[in-house]
């Protein structure tokens, strides 16, 4: 039973703001690719795609979500970069019994106290970042930490997750400084980090903030003087704008890298062509493809577009595509899949444009994500 006889997918993302490169238009393209790959039709009807810009604002996101559900017969909203927007949409989706698929947002509350029966968190989260990067850095000898944290929910969340990992591995936290978001001048905070004497400066921020912090650390001779930076959430687009010169050697955790195998390369090449060339997808782009495709498969399997039933079906079906080779969805809405610890190549190692990462380690999904037992999601039966 398809309520209105058609399936309509809404991609709600940041099309004009800070995250429009790592998500943005590329996620719309990715979603369209998923629809095309699925065959473009479901139950004899064309699958429709609409998209909008939430400008990273909770109020705009919630307004658009409401309008889509009320007047546009949208069945599912995908992508949702930025936690605030994702939560806003989650509230509306919950109320309307619709499915929401989060790819770009990072924070763990989405699968904890903000979880819902119809809400999914797909690509990565701060927990996984901490497990990957935090753990690797401590193990390679970075025992003492100082955090530069973006002063908003996401930054706090990322810092907290990383601190947990650092301490669990026997490291110590010497201090932290919250910087305004967004921020362009990190020199002062870097100086404080330097004064702390910590071996590792953990960057609990994202996007332009991370980029600026890294560049300026180099400028002020902080890296040369022996301290190391750990970017706790770095996207390939960030590495691209930093340039290998600045980014080389950095450890980072990612859910996807375009140059991993033939499948990823093939998909990325297609994506890149559709984007007009010259760019490679971030994990958020790939994740959006994966989640939309999985949604469509599940809808077909459930033979309905009723949110809760589709959501049940989604939990049942395994995920196997170029993005998640062995993914599965848990009760709290977390899509668990393998993550990768990568190191940024030296300029001399890079063979061409966008040849940026060496994959150092594959982190099995169950290790990367918060154990279900620790979840505060009410849907998790204990």
């Amino acid at each position, binding site marked *: 039973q398809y309520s209105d006889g058609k399936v309509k997918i809404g991609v709600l993302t940041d099309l*004009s*703001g*800070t995250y*429009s*490169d*790592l998500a943005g238009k590329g996620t719309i393209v990715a979603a369209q690719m998923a629809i095309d790959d699925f065959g473009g039709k479901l139950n004899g009807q064309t699958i429709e795609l609409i998209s909008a810009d939430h400008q990273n604002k909770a109020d705009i996101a919630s307004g658009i979500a409401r309008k889509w559900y009320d007047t546009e017969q949208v069945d599912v909203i995908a992508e949702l970069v930025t936690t605030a927007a994702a939560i806003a949409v989650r509230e509306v989706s919950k109320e309307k019994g619709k499915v929401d698929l989060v790819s770009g947002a990072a924070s763990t509350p989405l699968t904890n106290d903000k979880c819902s029966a119809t809400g999914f968190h797909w690509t990565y989260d701060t927990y996984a970042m901490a497990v990957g990067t935090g753990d690797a850095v401590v193990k390679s000898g970075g025992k003492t930490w100082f955090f530069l944290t973006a*002063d908003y929910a996401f930054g706090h969340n990322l810092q907290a997750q990383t601190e947990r990992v650092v301490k669990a591995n026997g490291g110590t936290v010497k201090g932290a*400084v*919250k*910087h*305004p978001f*967004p*921020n*362009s*001048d990190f*020199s*002062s*905070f870097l*100086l*404080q980090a330097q*004064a702390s004497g910590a071996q590792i400066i953990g960057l609990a921020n994202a*996007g*332009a903030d991370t*980029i*600026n912090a890294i*560049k*300026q650390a180099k*400028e*002020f*001779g*902080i890296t040369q*003087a022996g301290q190391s930076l750990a970017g706790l959430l770095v996207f390939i*687009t*960030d590495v*691209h*704008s*930093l*340039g290998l010169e*600045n980014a080389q050697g950095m450890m980072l955790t990612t859910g996807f890298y375009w140059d991993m195998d033939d499948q990823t390369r093939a998909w990325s090449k297609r994506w890149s062509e559709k984007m007009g060339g010259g760019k490679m997808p971030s994990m958020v782009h790939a994740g959006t493809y994966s989640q939309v495709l999985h949604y469509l498969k599940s809808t077909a399997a459930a033979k309905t577009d009723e949110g809760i039933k589709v959501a049940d079906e989604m939990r049942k079906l395994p995920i196997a595509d170029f993005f998640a080779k062995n993914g599965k969805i848990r009760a709290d809405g977390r899509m668990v899949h393998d993550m990768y610890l990568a190191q940024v190549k030296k300029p001399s190692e890079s063979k061409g444009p966008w040849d940026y990462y060496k994959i150092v380690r594959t982190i099995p999904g169950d290790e990367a994500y918060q154990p279900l037992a620790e979840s505060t999601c009410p849907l998790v039966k204990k």
Partner: protein
Amino acid sequence: MTILGIPTQALFGQLLLGLINGAFYAMLSLGLALIFGLLNIINFSHGALYMMGAFVAWLALNFLGLGYWPALIVAPLVVALVGIIIERTMLCRLYKLDHLYGLLLTFGLALIIEGLFREGYGVSGQPYSVPKELAGGWNLGFMFLPIYRGWVVVASLVLCLGTWYAIEKTKLGAYLRAGTENPTLVQAFGINVPLMITLTYGFGVALAAIAGVLAAPIYQVSPKMGSDLIIVVFAVVVIGGMGSILGSIVTGYMLGLVEGLTKVFYPEAASTVIFMVMVVVLLIKPAGLFGKGA
């Protein structure tokens, strides 16, 4: 040795950094004050033109192979030209009206300029490297000072003081100030006020463009770099006293320092402290620190 629990070394470092930020505030607020002073227009697009300055440098490097030094000349010229076109085609229709219309128009322009650059170049920022001549740094003992940042402070000081001298100490300045109050009458004295206004606007935005070029190697060249800054720069101009040239320069540096200190003691408030200062100053000295009359 420590002061309030902060090692003096670190404190000096922070003060110096504050001064560097102040250098940008001073250059931007100077142009803004100049434009406000003569055109009575609160140039909301100042930030966008600053950004444009940085972008012109970046484009010149990537498409024409022009380096930093030529860019320091070319970018202000290009931006001044854009400014002059804006002034001649749009702003000049608004002088007889309330400030508010100028504010709105330039706000609209800022949106357009910023939007176009976003559309063309995304928002994550483009790298622009420090010129070879200024790479490296000095170890001052209490901190490592990148040579480039030192250069920024020097360049900004020279520019600001030069402008200040030209305006306060020459006849030109008297024309500018009188033209602010009663342009019709000044023109009736035989001075080509429209031309003077156009050139002033061009000069004001050229200052912003220079600041943009100076900023490019420090921050990313990004379409957002202007809008992040503009509100703070407004605050600087107001604290200094609207239209006061010296006021905007001194206040620019001073607030850079205040902000630097705040980053040490209460970093969360760093972006707000300027507004606190503004409230206090305006309540005690209604016309701003260097403003005349109320």
